[in-house]
């Protein structure tokens, strides 16, 4: 397949995925599951940065972060900064991450979500928003559990130039 068509198709799918992310963030959840709402945008951005880093890297992470900030009503720049940092790390090491076994990659993603939540916690602390410890722990647990599913699902949608195992 010519690379131009492939790139365009990947871009369209990525934008649709981002749209669905925002919808997932905005959809109201029952009280019981509220603290387990995963960071959808972060999982998507990590996937994109590992697999098609040429098209989606820091600029995209920043923009999606801003969208999340506005839709969550948090301090403008909070999620942008956190996802920027994570995606910088991922893009830097995307070639290593690509050849990781699946379980190891999941462990790395768990670690990345912990850093992400820590940055959110930090900025919340500095700006004087207090919240319970569980609300930071919930997304880490749910994100780690969901990562394999999301990665497999998105892997089906995108077209890669190199054949994957």
């Amino acid at each position: 397949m010519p690379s131009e068509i492939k790139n365009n198709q990947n871009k369209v799918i990525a934008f649709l995925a981002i749209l669905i992310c925002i919808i997932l963030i905005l959809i109201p959840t029952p009280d019981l599951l509220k603290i387990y709402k995963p960071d959808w945008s972060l999982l998507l951005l990590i996937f994109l940065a590992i697999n098609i880093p040429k098209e989606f890297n820091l600029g995209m992470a920043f923009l999606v972060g801003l969208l999340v900030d506005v839709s969550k009503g948090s301090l403008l720049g909070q999620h942008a900064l956190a996802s920027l940092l994570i995606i910088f790390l991922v893009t830097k090491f995307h070639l290593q991450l690509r050849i990781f076994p699946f379980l190891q990659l999941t462990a790395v993603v768990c670690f990345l979500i912990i850093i992400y939540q820590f940055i959110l916690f930090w900025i919340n602390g500095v700006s004087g928003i207090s919240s319970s410890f569980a609300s930071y722990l919930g997304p880490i647990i749910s994100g780690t559990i969901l990562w394999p599913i999301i990665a497999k699902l998105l892997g089906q949608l995108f077209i890669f130039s190199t054949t994957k195992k």
Partner: protein
Amino acid sequence: MVVDSDKHRRPRIPALNIKFILLFCLSFFLLFSDQKNNYVSLLRNSVAIAIHPIQSLVDFPQRFGSWINTNISSREELIQENKRLYDDQLQKKLALQRLASLEQENIRLRKILNASSTIKNSVQIARIISTDINPFRHLVVINKGEQDGAYNGQVLVDSNGVIGQILQTNFLSAKVILISDTDHALPVEINRNGFRALAQGNGSFHSLSIPFIPNNADIEIGDLLVTSGLGGKFPNGYPVAIIDSISLNPTQQFADVTAKPLASLNQAREVILINSN
């Protein structure tokens, strides 16, 4: 072999470090300017407008459900509802008759006292289009924005009591902070005796804490708290909550008092915006 395999063999992403440093500084700048003052409200507004269609999309199933509900309800149900509403309206009318004369009397008395005679406020109905936008806060988004005349600090009530105030207006929507948010406190008074207090949110939809009540204060379970209007933001006289527990501890200086909000903070769909100027 694919055409661009050569391109993918090169590991470098162009200008990664420089891009990172630039965007990092930019987000820090955004954080500071959003925290300290309102310089970036234009940016926030424009992003909010971009998100507005998505918000409406998410809200659509709920609206569709209620539309179906109104269209499919049977004739009998409608007749019954109509009858109930008619009775309701009759009662309200009766209460209003007395209110009109009381209002007149109040205005007359206020004139005698040389006080300002603002009792009536104009109102506007808004709909909540998004909830639990942030797990750490009690914020909701309503479908009225600057375009409809909403402004920062505007007060929201539902049919039972005060819900909250507008924290931030965008062009088409506004972010509302509920009275149950941990960062929110509003000046209230006890309707029975005019005792002044603060009603502070504590992160639960079903209780507000009332701090700094002396152990010997005249306060009882079941007392109605209404807005006192002393903070300058909330108009006075709107019901807020009912005292539901008082625990006295002689070793502490203040009593531990909580109140139950009258408005259904986590159930309301339609809210009323009060225009106080």
